[in-house]
């Protein structure tokens, strides 16, 4: 075998703490290595060119590149190797950047370690063999989970691109947070005016199947051929009959139900259509508060419904759909401010959340766009906004910045001054994060044109004032620029509560087999280069489910994800990864252990003519985990590219040198 080795400097990234020339020199001594060199940037054009040229000129059978993480550039180099006529699996990488150069400054030890890693890669490569991918049919349909603005945008883009879309939304209507907003920064245009038409498009698009009030129960399969089970929760109303006329809402006697769409600032009925622009505009009964379900009496809605749509016996339904790709767009939830005892912990009615304030500002909201104090309905003259509530706060385990609250606070302060011209608006902030296009200008307008008072400091405490203005709240904070403690008597306090991942995001991620961070936000495949992909091929991300983002960023990512899905499913067939399990039939004793162990059901038992059995791998189903290899008592099933021999070769490569070192 003829092996070539290239050691990358990565500019100074590696070369600063690893002697790359020495590594290359050492590699020349390894068995089968006929050529070794170092290069400033292996992944650059000249770098790749050198690799290709060397393969051709020296007739190499395999190549090792010692550089960054294979998670970064493995694909790049495999392509280069392939261009030079080698099989792309005759290539190994040694990670001497992330795992060596960047974690220690000890040049001597780093160099030794790099040499070891290259030795391991060479030894493994000596057992590599060419692999070829098989191709398989794909489902030209996409599953989109969550129908906020991101899910809606992705659904429309995919549908326009010619894909069938299965859109799953757990609430009764699509729209997400954006459907609750009044105006949006930085343009201050009406949120529903922008979103509404898109929602209607979703409702009417022939390629989009909408499952509202539904959740994904199970996802199986693999890229190109997923199968998803969707639980459709029963609305106790036959949606094929309901016309959304609203007659039932008028008459329902259970009227004290917390209105989720209005963030609890008003009440609604047990049978309900969340808002006039809802899609689908259908009624649903909340059985936990409906008198018929809780007390066994009533039944008014059934009597009143002109379409005869109410059916108390309707049950949940589980439907199965086949799709080729998945986009997760489950968005965000908000920090629960009742955890903040210093801000009243929910005890003061006039301390509200930013989203409650949006509902109040909204002309279609419960106060018809009039700002009123929840305690007494009075119009507030002094409104205090507090930024970073439940964000950038380690004491509540929310160390991250929620990204858009600075901006919506500026927006809400402006709108406050618009709605009540003789009002005063104060914003307590730590830093203003206004990095989008036109954002900084927007915040400056709030300060300069709208005379919003920005106070740099956190608020330590809110308490009710007593005495003559006894119905106000005293906000006690700091103005760190003044170096002083400050107090303001406020009529209304609005908390810019931080963003959290959607409830149940972690559980969903587990179903989708994607990773999520400590806060439940889904993990992208690479933070810079693969921001919409996940590590599970065929599953993509859009919107605030990946990290808190505002509408423009959510929509951009949604369109990007749609583009990725369209590209993926534009082919009629996909190539499967050939790094899968293979059975060496002659060794197999037909015990069936691998079949029972494989988590994907990728192994079948095949009967031979003599009646004995042998295992067989279904290539398109096998995911390449290698669990079966370890299970097999005779090691008859091996994972290509990660065979026992290859992994042991790596172990041996290390142990042998150690032996030499200690014995010398």
């Amino acid at each position: 075998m003829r092996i070539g080795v290239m050691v990358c400097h990565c500019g100074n990234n590696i070369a600063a703490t690893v002697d790359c020339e020495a590594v290359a020199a050492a590699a020349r001594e390894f068995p089968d290595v006929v050529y070794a060199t170092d290069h400033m940037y292996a992944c650059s054009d000249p770098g790749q060119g050198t690799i290709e040229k060397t393969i051709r000129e020296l007739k190499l059978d395999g190549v090792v590149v010692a550089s960054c993480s294979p998670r970064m550039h493995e694909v790049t180099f495999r392509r280069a190797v392939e261009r030079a006529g080698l099989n792309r699996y005759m290539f190994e990488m040694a990670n001497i950047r992330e795992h060596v150069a960047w974690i220690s400054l000890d040049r001597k030890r780093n160099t030794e370690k790099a040499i070891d890693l290259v030795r391991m890669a060479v030894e493994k490569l000596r057992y590599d063999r060419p692999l070829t991918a098989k191709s398989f049919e794909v489902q030209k349909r996409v599953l989109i989970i969550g129908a906020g603005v991101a899910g809606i945008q992705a659904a429309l883009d995919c549908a326009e691109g010619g894909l069938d879309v299965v859109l799953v939304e757990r609430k009764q209507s699509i729209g997400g947070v954006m459907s609750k907003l009044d105006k949006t920064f930085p343009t201050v245009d009406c949120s529903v005016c922008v979103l509404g038409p898109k929602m209607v498009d979703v409702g009417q698009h022939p390629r989009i199947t909408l499952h509202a009030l539904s959740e994904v129960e199970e996802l199986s399969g693999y890229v190109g051929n997923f199968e998803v089970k969707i639980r459709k929760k029963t609305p106790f109303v036959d949606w094929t009959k309901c016309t959304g006329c609203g007659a039932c809402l008028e008459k329902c006697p259970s009227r004290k139900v917390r209105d989720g769409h209005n963030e609890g600032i008003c009440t609604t009925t047990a049978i309900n259509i969340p808002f006039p622009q809802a899609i689908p505009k259908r009624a649903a009964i909340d059985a936990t508060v409906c008198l018929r379900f809780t007390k066994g009496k009533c039944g008014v809605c059934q009597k009143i419904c002109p379409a005869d749509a109410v059916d108390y016996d309707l049950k949940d339904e589980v439907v199965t759909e086949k799709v080729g790709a998945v986009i997760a767009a489950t968005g965000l939830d908000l920090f629960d401010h009742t955890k903040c005892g210093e801000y009243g912990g929910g005890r003061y009615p006039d301390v509200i959340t930013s989203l409650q304030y949006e509902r109040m500002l909204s002309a279609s909201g419960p106060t018809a766009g009039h700002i009123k104090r929840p305690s007494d309905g009075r119009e507030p003259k002094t409104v205090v906004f507090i930024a970073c509530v439940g964000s950038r706060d380690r004491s509540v385990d929310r160390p991250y910045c929620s990204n858009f609250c600075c901006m919506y606070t500026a927006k809400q302060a402006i709108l406050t001054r618009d709605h009540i011209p003789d009002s005063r608006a104060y914003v307590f902030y730590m830093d203003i994060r206004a990095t989008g296009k036109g954002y900084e200008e927007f915040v400056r307008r709030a300060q300069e044109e709208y005379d919003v008072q920005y106070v740099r400091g956190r608020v330590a405490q809110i308490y009710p004032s007593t005495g003559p203005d006894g119905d106000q709240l005293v906000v006690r904070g700091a103005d760190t620029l003044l170096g002083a403690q400050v107090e303001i008597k406020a009529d209304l306090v609005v908390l810019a509560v931080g963003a959290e991942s959607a409830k149940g995001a972690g559980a969903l991620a587990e179903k989708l087999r994607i990773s999520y961070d400590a806060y439940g936000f889904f993990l992208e495949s690479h933070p810079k280069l693969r921001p919409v992909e996940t590590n599970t091929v065929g599953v993509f991300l859009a919107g605030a489910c990946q990290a808190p983002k505002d509408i423009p960023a959510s929509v951009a990512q949604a369109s990007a994800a749609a583009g990725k899905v369209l590209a993926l499913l534009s082919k009629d067939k996909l190539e499967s990864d050939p790094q899968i399990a293979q059975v060496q039939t002659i060794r197999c004793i037909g015990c069936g252990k691998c079949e029972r162990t494989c988590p994907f059901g990728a192994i079948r038992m095949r009967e031979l003519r003599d009646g004995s059995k042998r295992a067989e791998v279904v290539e398109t189903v096998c995911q390449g985990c290698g669990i079966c290899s370890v299970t097999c008592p005779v090691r008859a099933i091996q994972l290509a590219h990660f065979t026992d021999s290859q992994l042991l070769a790596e172990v041996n490569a290390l142990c042998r040198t150690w032996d030499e070192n200690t014995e010398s």
Partner: protein
Amino acid sequence: MQDMGREYRIIGFLCNWCSYGGADAAGVARFSQPTELRIIRVPCSGRVDPMFVAKALLSGADGVLVSGCHPRDCHYTEGNLYARRRLELLRRFLPIIGVDEGRFEYVWVSASEGSRWRDMVTKFTDKIHQLGPMPRMAEAARTLCKLEGMLGVSSAQPDMWRADAASPAPRHDALLNMDDFRLDASKLDEAKEVMDGE
């Protein structure tokens, strides 16, 4: 922090999806770490054969660390649970072949947990430093031969696919076949306890 004297010989088997990414993240964040650990990338911690670990320890490694995805966060759904079951049994088995069980550790690190990886490596390396070098056992070579015989491969033997794999070498002596332990109900309960503990 580091004993500047000798370098210890530590092997890490890391799952490609989680821990390998976590180790990358630790590098990207420039978290300084002990240098001894050499990482072998595997697709899933479920791919780690207890045999690899035993082999590494008997061939001169001072410690072996296996790191996979958090429970329920496995890229392959449940590979890490298989791994846990097998490796937990391996841990109990190690003293039988004369290896201090402290030389082997199994941990969870996700791709976003660079600092957790740093802590894990540092802690494990410290532990190995405390245990000192792996004693060279007279028995080791013999045990090793036996193990290799059972596996049907040895470092000297070429790839089983290419070689004359005509002679199936069933491992009658299933000393290391951890799955067979599952037949033993008492052990199974023990293993379950271990799993539920997390």
